[in-house]
């Protein structure tokens, strides 16, 4: 624990310096409605704590979680399919890449028209920006399985199923964790974009409502909370990864 603090020290010092700079700059500009100081944002967080934690945070977390789960199922499925069949790879890969050229934010208002103010318009935005890194990273992981290992098991009489579970899955696990760590912040952002465009609750929605009220600190407060939650989630996954994978880089 102490070691972790020590290794994070430079980052913390730098962050503190940036925040100081922001504080001083914002105090000088003195226009809290567009540029609040960090202290004002913290004050706002405290003021809004009840609605933030009981109403908006749960709403955003629900969208994030549902979006993440759908993205995982979709991403893993596509990756396994592409790995198993060269034909599927040729068919799917370009389409997956092309899907990322869609400016999701620009067409997201349509999703609201399709699904109304239900959770699904937001989930769709989340899935659209999250499934891609999962698909590509997990596919790379599946491809990283060593040919020699596969051949060795084949000489033992292994079936396709043996190869998948005894080589492909363990080889992919580190990649899978990288994918999740990327996907968590992306899905939070996706949820926020979705809520920004049309919702009745959620951190993105709250932030937008504060914007219309020209409450600068109120715009920032939900966003700060959102990144804190995302960072916490990534840290938890990293911890789990450390527990599960002790052989990274030995292949």
């Amino acid at each position: 624990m102490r070691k972790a603090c020590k290794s994070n020290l430079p980052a913390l010092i730098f962050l503190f310096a940036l925040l100081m700079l922001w504080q001083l700059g914002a105090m000088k500009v003195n226009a809290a409605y567009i540029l609040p100081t960090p202290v004002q944002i913290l004050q706002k967080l405290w003021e809004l704590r009840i609605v933030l934690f009981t109403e908006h945070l749960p709403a955003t977390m629900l969208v994030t979680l549902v979006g993440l789960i759908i993205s995982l199922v979709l991403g893993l499925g596509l990756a396994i399919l592409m790995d198993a069949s060269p034909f599927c790879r040729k068919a799917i890969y370009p389409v997956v890449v092309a899907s990322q050229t869609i400016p999701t934010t620009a067409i997201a208002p349509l999703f609201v028209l399709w699904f109304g103010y239900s959770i699904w318009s937001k989930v769709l935005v989340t899935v659209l920006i999250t499934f891609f890194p999962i698909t590509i990273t997990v596919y790379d992981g599946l491809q990283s399985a060593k040919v020699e290992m596969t051949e060795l098991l084949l000489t033992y009489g292994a079936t396709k199923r043996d190869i998948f579970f005894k080589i492909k899955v363990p080889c992919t696990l580190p990649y899978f964790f990288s994918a999740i760590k990327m996907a968590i912040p992306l899905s939070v952002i996706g949820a926020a974009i979705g809520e920004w465009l049309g919702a009745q609750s959620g951190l993105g929605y709250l932030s937008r409502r504060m914007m219309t009220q020209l409450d600068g600190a109120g715009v920032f407060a939900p966003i700060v909370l959102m990144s804190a939650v995302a960072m916490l989630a990534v840290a938890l996954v990293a911890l789990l990864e450390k527990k599960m994978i002790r052989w990274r880089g030995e292949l």
Partner: protein
Amino acid sequence: MSILNFDNVSYRYPGDDVDIIDRLSFSVEPGSFHCIIGTSGCGKSTIFRLINGLLQPKAGTVCVNGRHITGQKHYCGYMPQKDMLFPWRTIGENLALPLEIQRKYNKAEQRELIDAALADVGLAGCIDKRPDELSGGMRQRAAFARTMLTGSDLLLLDEPFSALDFLTRISMQEWLLKLWQRHKKTILFITHDVEEALFLSSGVLVVEQTPIRTLREIPVPMDYPRTHKDLAHPEIIELREQLVNMLRKQVTE
């Protein structure tokens, strides 16, 4: 009856113009220890891949125990050059691989076989270690134990000691001979090291040219058990010179 029999086997790699193995016939007696020796890239490993079924011959038949290999399973234990211990499995779990795939034994039986195999190669107590905690020689012994656990009477060892340092290599060679004499398996051993081939095998199979049409068998006039001092015998030194010259001719040709 011979344990392994090649009958007019040909193989050509996709994209090549000529067969790398051209109507090759040879056979191996049960319980023997043969080294296949040849220059690198001559196709020795291709012979192994035809035996273990990773490659299918273009023509001819490969028989093990008198039966065609297609349709047979678990008839040979193959040990590749690198130890190929899976880093995410402990040594014990690595040894379990062939047993898990054969699905013949329950967990308790597997554990018993693994304990015995590890004790056999002098790695008792390493069952829960991870591969990166073992030295090169120990890893090769673990990989060999895993090969033994395939339960096959025919073992194919593809340059298993080539990555080890000299001193470890000679002690591993002595160790391997001891195990071979204890278990009476048939071993085919690929190497490009003439001394290693002479020390280990009862007969050296020389790849004289590529494409491989014949394997020239040269018996090694030494009794088992052997020690490395036996290599200093004048007859062996002469044989060694003869083999080196045969191989060098190919390199310069």
